[in-house]
């Protein structure tokens, strides 16, 4: 095990400092700001509202749509051309799947809840920050939810299982795996699971156990933001 000391000096299971605030976008029905390390996400929720074109409507329930976007100046290198790409489309899709299991829109047939995320600065873990921000925004909007969704990445850097990799760890010159996870607070079920890199099954299961504890820390920050909002 070569990776004993993390690049930013954190303990293996220590997350970067987090901040969250609900109700930051007055026009939205619900909104939130979520910051972890140098990754910042704004989320806005609009709806339930009418859904067009009509063939997309579901007469049994409302649906959700997610739109993830990095601002053009939010990348670590050159400017990002605006307008989305394959990566942002895929993230929007997995975000929808990570959040849909807790949302109950059966009272709102034929409607849509639109969810927008914009990131002004990023340093790895953007999809997890986005999901954690959206979960706060959905609660702020009063959307019926069966459980809370909290998300953070875990992974393995040169044989050591760690939580919440930053950009320098993702780019560490060794075998690295990055595993974004979203977990439900009560049931501990997994609603987002992706991985890139290499990892053994044994280490993966260790990492997922770590994710349970890590997402609880995210949950505490989410709840604090919501309590402050409704004080």
């Amino acid at each position: 095990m070569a990776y004993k000391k993390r690049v930013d000096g954190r303990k293996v299971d220590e997350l970067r400092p987090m901040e969250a605030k609900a109700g930051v976008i007055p026009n939205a029905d619900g909104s939130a700001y979520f910051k972890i390390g140098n990754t910042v996400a704004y989320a806005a929720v609009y709806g339930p509202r009418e859904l067009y074109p009509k063939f997309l409507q579901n007469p049994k329930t409302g649906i959700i749509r997610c739109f993830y976007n990095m601002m053009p100046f939010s990348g670590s290198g050159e400017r990002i051309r605006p307008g989305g790409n394959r990566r942002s489309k895929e993230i929007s899709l997995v975000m929808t799947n990570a959040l849909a299991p807790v949302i109950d829109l059966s009272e709102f047939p034929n409607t849509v809840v639109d969810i927008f995320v914009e990131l002004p600065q990023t340093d790895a873990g953007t999809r997890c920050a986005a999901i954690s921000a959206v979960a706060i925004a959905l609660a702020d909007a009063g959307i019926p939810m069966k459980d809370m969704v909290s998300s953070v990445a875990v992974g393995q850097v040169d044989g050591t299982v760690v939580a919440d990799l930053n950009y320098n760890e993702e780019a560490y010159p060794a075998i690295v795996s990055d595993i974004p996870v979203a977990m439900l607070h009560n049931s501990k079920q997994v609603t987002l699971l992706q991985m890139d890199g290499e990892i053994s099954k044994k280490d993966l299961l260790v990492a997922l156990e770590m994710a349970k504890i890590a997402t609880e820390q995210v949950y505490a920050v989410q709840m604090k933001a919501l309590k402050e909002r409704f004080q």
Partner: protein
Amino acid sequence: MIIVNKETIAQLALQDKRLDGRGLTEYRTPIAIETNISKTAEGSVRVQIGQTIILAGLKMAIEKPYNDTPDEGGIMINAELVPLSGPQYEPGPPGKKAVELARVVDRGIREAKAIDMKKLCLVQGEKAWFITIDLVTLNDAGNLLDAAGLAALAVLKEAVFPAYEPHTGVIDYKTKTDQHLPLIKEPLPVTVYKISGQLLVDLTSQEEDAFEARLTVASDEKGILSALQKGGEAPLSIEEIDRIIDLALEKAKFLRGQLK
């Protein structure tokens, strides 16, 4: 929410009144400018006027100068009216409103020659700094034009060059120098709106539905105009244009004072 029709807003304007109790030529409060809101940008600001919130981020890159200006760098301003910022916006490529916003702000700065473009040149005909400012709305509560113009000027003042190694030609975006842009003027756009023949500034979204005509006037600290843009379907008389410009110059001075 109370639904107020255009006629009510027009009637009130005739009596020198507005829904939120402001004077016709009074800006909303707060006017807040927060800098360094994005560490990944070479400069970044968050500008708030009332409940209108807009972010501006500035990125720099080295490119080949244009053939007709081989000893100059360049600037481009882009605006994204993102669906996060209001229920009227949809995902997709920039619409007319976003394009007009970006181009009016761009002209105000470009035509004033606010940046010494020759100082952005590194190797004549080969390499020069090119600046891109992206304006991204967080909450559109009206008068985006003035908020965007203020954000663009604020980010030009705030930005610093990234570290650059001329021998390798590599820009190290993670290391920032303390060198600011060669900004020699401070142009700002102010939009004056006409409702019931009266002149107003800083409209809310609700009031924007009721205006008849608008004129955006960009001016520098010496009062020299660098861009004009008339909007709305109603015509303006020369006498009205005269009064609008006086008002815009006065308000540009006021907004510039907020930047200090």
